[in-house]
Structure formats: structure tokens, C-alpha cells
């Protein structure tokens, strides 16, 4: 697929390869302190079966079917894929979600572990947030996978948004990128049916598509207590919970080689090993490369792809040629301050809490100082 996007104000065209890696040899769930584990060694698990729950409410489900191999010493639960795709199907699956009640929505969000830790979604919905912003744009440059998820589920996502707007009496805004032609067209075609959704198309310029920047720029909001932000993936999870009564097992991740010279959007399973995924499904080697997860501008390198698995936090893997970045002395050029989209001073010893961690300050710094690190 060809995609146009904007980075640093330059419009670019890019060829994206779409891949699937839905049958990994095994999936891995890590056990941490305080987790409740629901399976034991030798158990057979189905797709969508609950494996463990963390103390903060995050739930891990099997995303492949097979036998459990537990290594408690290393804290690993491995499910060896028998490739039969045997899955639980929920009785709560619905044909039409438009009649779902408020309480059911809240309950499903909690039960399926969509809304864990401080229950941001549930609390905001309960506390009568005034605005719901569905930010369907990939905030980081080169992520390009929200659009695929959106494309696969346009109707469902719009139905869910409309439902949330109606049930919670909330102002719902759906935001799409101006460059996401297919989805914009698809939404325009059916939006008339969903009259509780305000549809907005904005230019995708990094980092002005982060939630905070959208709130500031388009809603004049500098405090976000009243706003519930959902990205495509969170909305999709709610949709799946309401429609199928099930957790989400697959997700898109983007693997970006070089300086976006080669981009793969891969549909894969939660728990699939990243090193294995690259080795088995793509031809590129990752030897002698620098790897960045999710945001290369923040410059947090990840040393061991082999031990990483696809999780909620995996969105993009950037694979660059090895590069030795050395910081020199700050020349006080002020570029970092000028570029900061939330107008804070990145040079401050302790970064202001308004920082959206976009990494632009480090990106422009001629002295290569990592302004997001504590030792600057």
C-alpha cells in the first residue's frame, strides 16, 4: 500500500508491506511479583483463555492454543502453539451493539482488563467527562498501523464511538489524519448514520497529533481531566469486548528498517517473540543494528529483542544501522526550547510534567544531548 505522510513538514510517499505472523511457534507471558496465575505446567489452553492477572488489573490471555510450559524460576509461561486455533467463543457475542446499556459497557471494560490500573476509561466515563476524543492517528512518525486497524473495523469503531457518546451523553470527536485517504473516505460515506459523532480531519504533523497537542490546538484545553482520550486500539478493544465478549488476541505492529526505507506492518499475536517474528517472517537481519521501540526520537535503545514479546506497549520497532551517538557540550542555542510543542524548557533539570515525551528537543539538539535523560 502506498501512504503519504508528513514528517518535519515534508510530504513523503512510502510503500508499506503488510505481513501476517499469526502462527508463532509459541507465545510467552512473563510472571511478575503479585501476579495471579490461572494455569499450570502441562495444561491445555484455548485462545482467549485467561492465563494470569497482574495486581494492577492487567489480564493476559492465551492468543494461541496449545500446551503450557511453565518455568517458574525464570518467571515464564510459555504456550506452545499446536496450530489448531482452538478458541473460546463467548456467549455474550452480539449482532448489534447499539442497544448495549451503560452498565454493561463499564462492566466489560473492567472485566476484560481493558481498563486497568487507575481505571482511566471507567472513571472518566462515570465522572461524566464532557469530551471524548478518538485519536485515530498514529502519533509517532512511522508507526502507520492504526490506519490498518481502523480500515479493518470502520463500522464497528464508529458504532462503538456513537454508543459511548449516546450512553454517557458525551461530546464525541473522531479525529483522522488528512493523509489517511481510505479511512477518511470510508468514514465520510457512513458518518451520516452516526449523528452523535463529530468528525474532524487534521494534518498529521508530528508531534501535533499527540493527545495533549490535539486538546490544546483544537479544543483549547490545557487540562485534560474532562477529556477521555481513546486511540484506535483502545476503542477496538472496547468494540471487541461489546461485540464478541472477548479480549483482543492480535495486533498490528510496525517494523521500520533503516530510515523508513523499508516498512512492514505485521499482524501478529500478543506474546509472540519479537526476535523470532523478525527472523521468521521478514528477510532482514538485525545483527549489528540499533533497535528502538515505539519512538526513536526518545533514543531509548533496546538491547535484547530476543527477550521481548508483543504486548500492549509494542507498537513499532525501528531498526537502524548501528550509530555511536555522543553528546558534546550544550552550546545554548535554544533550539530545544524553541521546538518544544508544549512550550516548556527541556533544559530544566527536572522536566515539567506537561512534557509529552515527543523527543523533539533531543532530535534538534546539535550537541546530541539526550534531553529526556536525567543525566543531561
Amino acid at each position, binding site marked *: 500500500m502506498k501512504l503519504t505522510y508528513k514528517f518535519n513538514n515534508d510530504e513523503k510517499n512510502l510503500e508499506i508491506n503488510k505481513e501476517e505472523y499469526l502462527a508463532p511457534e509459541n507465545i510467552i507471558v512473563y510472571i511478575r511479583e503479585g501476579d495471579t496465575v490461572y494455569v499450570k505446567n502441562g495444561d491445555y489452553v484455548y485462545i482467549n483463555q485467561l492465563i494470569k492477572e497482574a495486581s494492577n488489573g492487567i489480564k493476559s490471555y492465551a492468543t494461541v492454543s496449545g500446551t503450557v510450559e511453565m518455568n517458574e524460576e525464570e518467571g515464564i509461561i510459555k504456550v506452545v502453539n499446536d496450530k489448531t486455533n482452538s478458541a473460546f467463543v463467548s456467549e455474550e457475542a452480539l449482532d448489534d451493539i447499539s442497544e448495549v446499556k451503560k452498565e454493561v459497557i463499564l462492566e466489560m471494560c473492567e472485566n476484560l482488563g481493558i481498563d486497568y490500573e487507575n481505571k482511566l476509561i471507567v472513571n472518566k466515563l462515570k465522572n461524566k467527562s464532557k469530551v471524548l476524543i478518538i485519536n485515530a492517528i498514529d502519533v509517532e512518525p512511522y508507526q502507520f498501523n492504526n490506519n490498518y486497524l481502523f480500515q479493518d473495523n470502520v463500522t464497528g469503531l464508529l458504532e462503538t464511538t456513537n454508543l459511548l457518546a449516546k450512553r454517557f451523553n458525551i461530546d464525541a470527536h473522531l479525529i483522522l489524519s488528512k493523509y489517511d485517504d481510505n479511512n477518511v473516505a470510508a468514514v465520510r460515506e457512513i458518518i451520516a448514520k452516526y449523528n452523535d459523532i463529530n468528525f474532524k480531519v487534521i494534518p498529521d504533523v508530528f508531534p501535533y497529533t499527540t493527545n495533549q497537542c490535539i486538546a490544546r490546538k483544537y479544543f483549547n484545553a490545557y487540562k485534560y481531566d474532562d477529556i477521555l482520550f481513546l486511540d484506535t486500539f483502545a476503542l477496538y478493544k472496547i468494540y471487541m469486548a461489546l461485540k464478541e465478549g472477548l479480549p483482543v488476541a492480535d495486533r498490528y505492529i510496525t517494523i521500520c528498517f533503516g530510515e523508513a526505507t523499508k516498512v512492514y506492518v505485521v499482524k501478529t499475536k500478543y506474546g509472540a517473540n519479537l526476535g523470532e517474528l523478525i527472523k521468521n517472517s521478514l528477510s532482514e537481519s538485525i545483527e549489528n543494528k540499533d533497535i528502538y521501540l515505539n519512538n526513536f526520537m526518545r533514543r531509548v535503545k533496546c538491547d535484547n529483542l530476543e527477550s521481548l514479546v508483543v504486548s500492549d506497549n509494542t507498537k513499532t520497532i525501528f531498526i537502524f544501522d548501528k550509530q555511536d551517538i555522543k553528546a558534546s557540550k550544550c552550546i545554548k542555542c*535554544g533550539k530545544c526550547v524553541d521546538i518544544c510543542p508544549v512550550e516548556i524548557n527541556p533544559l530544566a533539570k527536572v522536566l515539567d510534567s506537561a512534557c509529552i515525551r515527543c523527543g523533539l528537543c533531543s532530535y534538534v539538539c546539535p550537541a546530541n544531548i539526550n534531553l529526556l535523560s536525567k543525566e543531561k
Partner: protein
Amino acid sequence: MEKGLLQKNKILGINILYIVSILPLIIFAFYKNGLMVYNNGETTMFLAFQYLIIPIIIIVLSYVFEIYYYLIIKKDSDCHNVVNSLAPYVNALCYLVCGPRDFLWVTIPLIIMFDILLKFIDNKWSINQIALFKCVLVALLAITGFYNNANLYELNNNLNPSLFDYFIGRSVGCIGTTSVLCCLIGYVVLLFNKYYKKEIPLLAILGYSIVAIIIYFVGGLSFTNLLIKTFKSGFIFAAIYVAPLSMATPVVKSGRIIYSLLIGMICAILVNIANFYMGIYIVILISSFLVPLFNKFKLSVS
């Protein structure tokens, strides 16, 4: 596909542009203080060339010291700090603000000494090295009675420069600061440098002009007179090269605006009313001390 998503060494390029931007000044200094004086038979060819050779010596010496500082003192085996250092540029500028007949065996060690001194107190205070150097130098020369900015030719001949002479720099002044034209050419070069604070000279000149216009209407100074004073004082040089010195200027935009306007306005008063040309450097020096304060001029987020 665009290159440059990852960090590349940018300061090396910045450094080269900085040094290129002072080349017109150095060449003009060589012409005015060397060639012209030699043509009038008032100096030797060797001495005439000093104005070309000394800046090179200073730049080389600065690098030697940088290598010594990072390799020996800081025990940092990597040379990227040396390559990235702006000290050679700053030191060359210090040379340009010396008088044409100042004793070089005093000024060169003094320049290097300031470089060393500021390295050690670095990051603690914000000090404009060029302004500080100039103030100390002038104080030393004034005390010892050697303060005079005329070259040998200007000293022996009573010249009466026109406005145009002042503009192109055929007037009494520091080695490399007299030519407004060369400063403007340098500014154009600096515009290509993304990390040069280009708005500072513009705003300083704006602040200066506002006060100058008031003086024109209230004080009755003629337009030509105002221009001559401005060119003669070296304000344009100070605004383009000294005031925006990156290490001693506010990083916050609003702070930068106030800093530059303030410098421009005070300089206009000192130059046109008090006839105190040295005041420019004192104002810049004091403002550089206040940079942490200027950095607080910032619209707060919440």
C-alpha cells in the same frame, strides 16, 4: 528518503559556518591595517601579514588547548568535543576586537587565558567571553596609557572619513570591527547557520533604531550624524557577532527578544547621547550575566 532522522554531528558544520562568517572581517582587517599601511610605507610586509597570520595562529592554538583540555585534563579520549568546540571562533572574535597596534604578545596570551578561565567556570555563570575580554583589555590599556585604536597610517595622517568610508570600514577602530559592510556579509553567511540566533541582531538594531529616532526628533541630531556614530561605535559588529554569542544568550524566545531590544536601546543611548562607545561591550557583558533572569521570561503552560 530523507536522511537525518538520527543524529548527525551538526556542530562541526555550525563551526565551519561561524568561521567562514568572520573571514570577510579578517580579510578586510588585513587590507586596512596591513596592506594599506604597507602601501604607504609605514610598515614592513612581514608586519602587514600579521593580520592574516595571527587569526590562524589563534584558531590553531585554541584547538591545541581544546585537545589538551579534553584529552589530558578531562581524560576524554574521544575527540568529538574538540571538533565541536566553538572556542576557536570565539577566540578569533576576541582578536578582532583588539586594537591594531595592541601588543600581540599581551593580547594572544590574554585571549587564551580567558578561554581557559571561562572553561573552568563554565556552566556555572553565563558570561559573554568577547565582551568580558574587550572590557578587561580596554581597562588594562587605559590604565597603562596605551589605549588607541588607530593603525599606524591613521595615527600619522589626519583623516576625515565620510559616511561611505565608515560604512565600508575605512575608519579608526578595532582590528576587524570597523567594516559595517563586512559585518553584513558575515550576517548573510550566519543566516545559513540554523543554530545562530539570527533574531538577536535584528531586534537589537530595531531597539537601537527606536531610540535613535527619538533622539533624532527630540535631540536634534542629524540623520548622517546618527549613522556615523552608529558605524563608528562598532555597534553593528557587536550586534551581529558579540551579542548573539550562543553560550551567553537566553535560550527562551521571549527572553531573547527582551535581551536584544534592551541591548539595542541602551547602546543607542550610550552611543548617541553619552558618546561612550565602549559602553556597548559593558551592556552586553552585564546582560550576559543576567541571562538566567531572561530565561525566566516564559509563558507558563498551565
